């Protein structure tokens, strides 16, 4: 817990409420994330985990409360939204690579067009990150030619190319065949060791135990319980948490 100090949080969420029509999907979320902190969010399906992290880069809008990312408050101002998005990387369950572009082009797109990096420089950086996720030899292939695990590693590298201050992961391994989960988790653990701020929605409890500073349990659009991984798994306080853990650990 060396990271949780007195510096201003990089993400500050206060009194967040969101509705889909009449459906109250997020019900008063408060969450501060400090720089370098790694948070795992778990909870039953439909509890609002995806919606919460999608609010952080405004893929969903919220109706009440505030979200401040790196000092920028998310409002309807499109300039603010784009600025936040450039600082926040997102990895999706279904990778969402751009199928009409090569792997290298997928990676260089953001830096070239959003960061205005010269093409050559952007491609060099892209190769660097591809090597990091152990996939440099696929640089000139298209996403459709890669396995799911490889695509997800490319998606992680694509986010990293933007040099994000925060990385969001929405169930990054749950669309993968079992034998590919490991290669993606290994890359994520490697990132964790480098100290990048991460919010990860996942049910990979091994991952949570080994890298998370904090585990959040969500249900019915609320954060029911949060704790360090050790206490979270060994001494869950709420009945809902105990039930959930018994379901996923057996």
């Amino acid at each position: 817990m060396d990271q949780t100090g007195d510096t201003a949080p990089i993400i500050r969420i206060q009194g967040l409420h969101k509705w889909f029509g009449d459906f109250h999907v997020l019900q008063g979320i408060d969450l501060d994330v400090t720089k370098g902190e790694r948070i795992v969010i778990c909870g039953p399906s439909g509890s609002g985990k995806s919606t919460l992290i999608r609010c952080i880069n405004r893929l969903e809008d919220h109706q009440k409360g505030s979200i401040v990312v790196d000092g920028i408050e998310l409002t309807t101002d499109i300039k603010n939204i784009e600025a936040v998005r450039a600082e926040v990387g997102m990895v999706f369950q279904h990778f969402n690579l751009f199928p009409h572009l090569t792997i290298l082009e997928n990676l260089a797109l953001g830096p070239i067009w959003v960061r205005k990096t010269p093409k050559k420089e952007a491609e060099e950086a892209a190769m660097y990150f591809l090597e990091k996720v152990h996939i440099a030899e696929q640089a000139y292939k298209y996403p459709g030619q890669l396995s799911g695990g490889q695509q997800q590693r490319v998606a992680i590298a694509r986010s990293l190319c933007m040099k994000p201050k925060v990385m969001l992961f929405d169930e990054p391994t749950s669309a993968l065949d079992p034998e590919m989960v490991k290669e993606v988790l290994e890359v994520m653990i490697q990132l964790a060791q480098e100290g990048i701020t991460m919010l990860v929605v996942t049910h990979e409890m091994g991952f949570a135990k080994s890298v998370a500073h904090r585990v959040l349990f969500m249900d019915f659009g609320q954060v029911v319980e949060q704790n360090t991984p050790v206490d979270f798994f060994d001494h869950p306080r709420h009945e809902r948490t105990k039930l959930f853990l018994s379901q996923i650990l057996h």
Partner: protein
Amino acid sequence: MDAADLKNRFADMKPPRTRVGVLGWIRTNLFGGWLSSILTLLILFVLYKTAVPFLKWALIDGLWTATGAQCKESPGACWSIIVRNIRFIIFGFFPLDQHWRPLAAMLLLFGLLFVSQYRRFWNRRLAWAWGAGLVVMGVLLKGGILGLPAVETEKWSGLPLTLLLSVFGLTAAYPLGVLLALGRQSNMPFIRILSVLYIELIRGVPLISLLFMSSVMFPLFLPEGVVINKILRAQMAIILFTAAYIAEVVRGGLQAMPRGQYEAAEALGLNYYLTMRLVILPQALKIVIPPTVSILISAFKDTSLVVIIALYDVLKTTQARLADPEWMGFSSEAYIFLAVLYFLGCFSMSHFSRRLERDLTHEH
């Protein structure tokens, strides 16, 4: 059994052969059973009864250089209606001694179109070549500078006119159609309603009425003394008409795009314009190449409707020869010629689209 054994267990096996030679193919495909045999024989009989007399008329008895009077004595096709009138049919009223100019312009156009069909030539140089080519074509047709005698646009006719109307009509309609499709999906109600109105209004009227409006009604709204060229007005009608259809096809492509593609682009910080240009449109437009080309092909053929506002495209110049007493009665030959001409244009377009689709396919 170890892994290598398991892997190589059936290494020698080849796929079974299903067809042996030409005779084998004929037997399995044409005479596979009694029903198939009867159908094959029936079709052969019908072909014999129709194709043979046609070929005799068209080729064996066909006359290529005879005068109209000689043709009337002969049982065969009279291709000389085309051959002997080819300059008028192709160039219409363009001054006779200046025919090299539209000819050069058309050759330039064909050259550019030919090169453009290869995806690998799509670069800035080709864009400049098109820009320069268009200027050169314009100068060639219009003249008035560089010692070329000026030719009024009323004299532009025949094949150059058809090509002008279709090439410009289609290339201008396509981007307009894409914009309309984007407008129809816009979050801004004003733009959305305007796009929907435009698309539905235009699709609700036949091209003929648009052409009439452009030639008869539209000039009434212009301030006195302002005259807009008749060809330009027809061109506008064709563009506006085709764009509405393109817009609907492109909208289909946009709707087929998964949400995840928008989200991934937005999550990178790309704005609306870049998301569309770099991520969404390249994929959506590719999906809709086949229906788009269908629209372009029918628009190409529809350019021949300009005859009703007295423009002499290649259809009209050909028909005009039929009115000549010498060539009266050879309409089959004239229309077969036109059919071949239009077929070549349409077939090239569909060939181009298939090549483009292949070049743009990366998966596997």
